[in-house]
């Protein structure tokens, strides 16, 4: 988590240094980004009570296909895109009434979202953006365990949503650098327990991403 924060803080401070230039793209684009993902400590609930799963930060990547709306567009300056993302979250610690124990296994999340992004564009080389998206996520628990004892596994598809903010840096007329933050959440997925039954977990993650977007 600390590592993720440092990355995001660094990226946030980067665009304070940005200068101004010009030119913008209108039309279709493709993009790809990579970054760090941190799934926040999750409250998990079953019929016996609440317990906590804590995760280590790990990687995420995503690919986008979208349309860039330039200046003068009647619906405003921004983008609409279809985004596929993959997030990996290794289990770090599991806490019960008796205490916390080392965890193993991971939660992987594949999502397909439609994002709408508004851009505060001017004549400068960079422009801040703010957006949000909604769609579906397939959340898969693989080999979750606590102190070597199986905890749960399985996968489920749930509604997912995302808020995003960042900055577009115009590199050329057709190529842009995207430096951003993503707040990704999903409706409480149900995960099968190793000893029968299931638990539902809260799901919310922070991500810092860097990507390239090419217009054509």
């Amino acid at each position: 988590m600390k590592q993720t924060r440092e990355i995001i803080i660094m990226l946030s401070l980067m665009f304070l240094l940005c200068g101004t230039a010009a030119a913008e793209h209108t039309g279709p684009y493709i993009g790809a980004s990579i970054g760090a993902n941190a799934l926040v400590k999750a409250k998990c609930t079953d019929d016996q009570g609440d317990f906590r799963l804590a995760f280590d930060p790990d990687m995420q990547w995503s690919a986008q296909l979208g349309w860039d709306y330039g200046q003068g567009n009647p619906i405003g300056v921004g983008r609409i895109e279809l985004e596929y993302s993959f997030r990996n979250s290794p289990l770090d610690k599991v806490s019960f009434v008796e205490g916390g124990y080392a965890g193993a296994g991971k939660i992987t999340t594949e999502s397909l979202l439609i994002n709408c992004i508004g851009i505060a564009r001017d004549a400068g080389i960079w422009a801040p953006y703010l957006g949000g998206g909604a769609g579906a996520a397939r959340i898969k628990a693989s080999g979750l365990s606590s102190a070597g004892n199986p905890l749960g596994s399985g996968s489920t598809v749930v509604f997912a949503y995302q808020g995003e903010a960042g900055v577009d840096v115009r590199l050329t007329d057709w190529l842009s650098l995207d430096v951003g933050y993503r707040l990704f959440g999903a409706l409480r997925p149900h995960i099968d327990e190793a000893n029968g039954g299931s638990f539902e977990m809260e799901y919310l993650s922070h991500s810092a991403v860097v990507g390239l977007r090419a217009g054509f």
Partner: protein
Amino acid sequence: MIKLIWSIGILLLLSGCGWDGAPTRINDFVPLTSIKIEAVSGAIAAHTSTKLTAIGDYSGLFSRDISDRVVWASNSPATADFVTPLLPGRVTGLVPGSAVLTATAEGLSASFELSVSSSTITSLTITPVDQSLAVGLTSQFAVAGVFSDATVQDLTFDVTWDSSATSVASVSNAAASKGFAQTLAIGTSTISATFDDVTAATSLTVTEPKLQTITLSPQAPSILTLTTGSFTAAGRYSDGVTRDITSQVTWKSSKTDIATISADGTATALTQGSATISATLDGISGTTNLTVTGGNLTAITLSPYSFTLVKDSVSRITATGSFLNGSILSSRDITEMVTWSTANSAVAAVTPSDGNLAWLKALAATTSTTITATYGSKSATAALSATAPQLATLTLYPTALEQLTAGTSSRFRLTATFINGITQDVTANADWSSSAVSTATVGNVERGKGRVSGLAVGSATISAEYGGKTVTAAVTVKQRTLQNLVISGGTSIVAGNQVAFTATATYSDGTSMDVTEETVWSIDDSNVIMLADSQNQPGQVVAVDGGSAEVTASFGNKTETTKITVH
């Protein structure tokens, strides 16, 4: 600037880091690897019991009490057995001998050998001894038994408990609560424990209920500067009863420069801010926050600021405060809060009455003096010229009241003209009377003087006598049916300001009448708006703090409500 805001916004998004609450679920994902049985003693006397505890070890990671999750069994149920299903692990020795007791769970088991002796009881000791408890409190008694083999055993579960005065205190013999005493009424009871004809006893004295908590009301009120607010203290006692202890507690304000509080719980707001009001009794305290709004006093204005009064006559005098809250100015009546004084007490006197009502009386003739109203470092003066001319004429206004309806009122004003040409409103100085008090009455006390109330259909003559002269006016009370009630006075007020609302009644014959004084006014949230002075300023409200509240007017069978927003 937008770059800076954008950066800060992103950083703030990092604030949420997940759930840090306390887990409530036990860890049953780790397999149970062994069980052990713990006991106070390996030997007990026949007809006594002891509690066995099964401790489960989970793969060496942790252990916990699993007494209620194992299956208990005895290899010799005739010697010792688990005869109390409600209490897992409690084993009773039935006859002398020995028995192997086992606890089994998840395919694992542990055993414990219990020896049951034939020793007999020699004495019992109850604890606590000679306890004193307030009504409503509870106590767990325990008893230790000494046996013929010199062993000592906890027999709390095995004895028969008794209370000599069950109306004073009860003691339980139920399996799950043996020896648990509940005090019921003031008095003394003997609590006894009997085992095999051996009895031990101790006294339990039940005293007056003991204060447990104090709750103040209202909770977190807002009041205006230079007004007062009353707090009450409710004490919850050990017997479960809540009592009004307002006059018993010690009241305290955390910031006496903002608000003071008197021994009867009346808080006086001095300056804008917040203070904590506390009430303490017998070491127990209750607190609430008091918010003082409405700005700080900057000036006082007297109305009228110049009087000419005839000797021995009175006139109403009013002090209005100007308040500043930041850049917002407001004003309201503070007659009740100022201290009145006169430069020459032989010439004039000010007599405060209830609420925002004060009377100035001229005591001498042909002399002038000043009247001063003071609050803190602020003061204002008014000039009084006292005179004693000869009365020439009296005039009543209006000359007649012909539209009065039963249940409503209206006012006459009496003006005296003296031979030197001066005039004075002497309504409050005249002696008023009605010729038909079953039809209409007229007030003859303080601010009520000259106010005519219609009681029944008919006519009456109202007389006003002053200075040896009398004038009269006719009053006609008519029968009308109330059709409608309308409140007027605005919908938006600046905090700290006083605003007058009026209530107008419309009748079946098309006439309408101001019934503000007959209307019962109420407000649903006194932290937003308060009534200025229901006796002397009916319909007038003062805005206390930002928000919205409803002002309700009730007259006859009509009720009207208007929503007021305070800025």
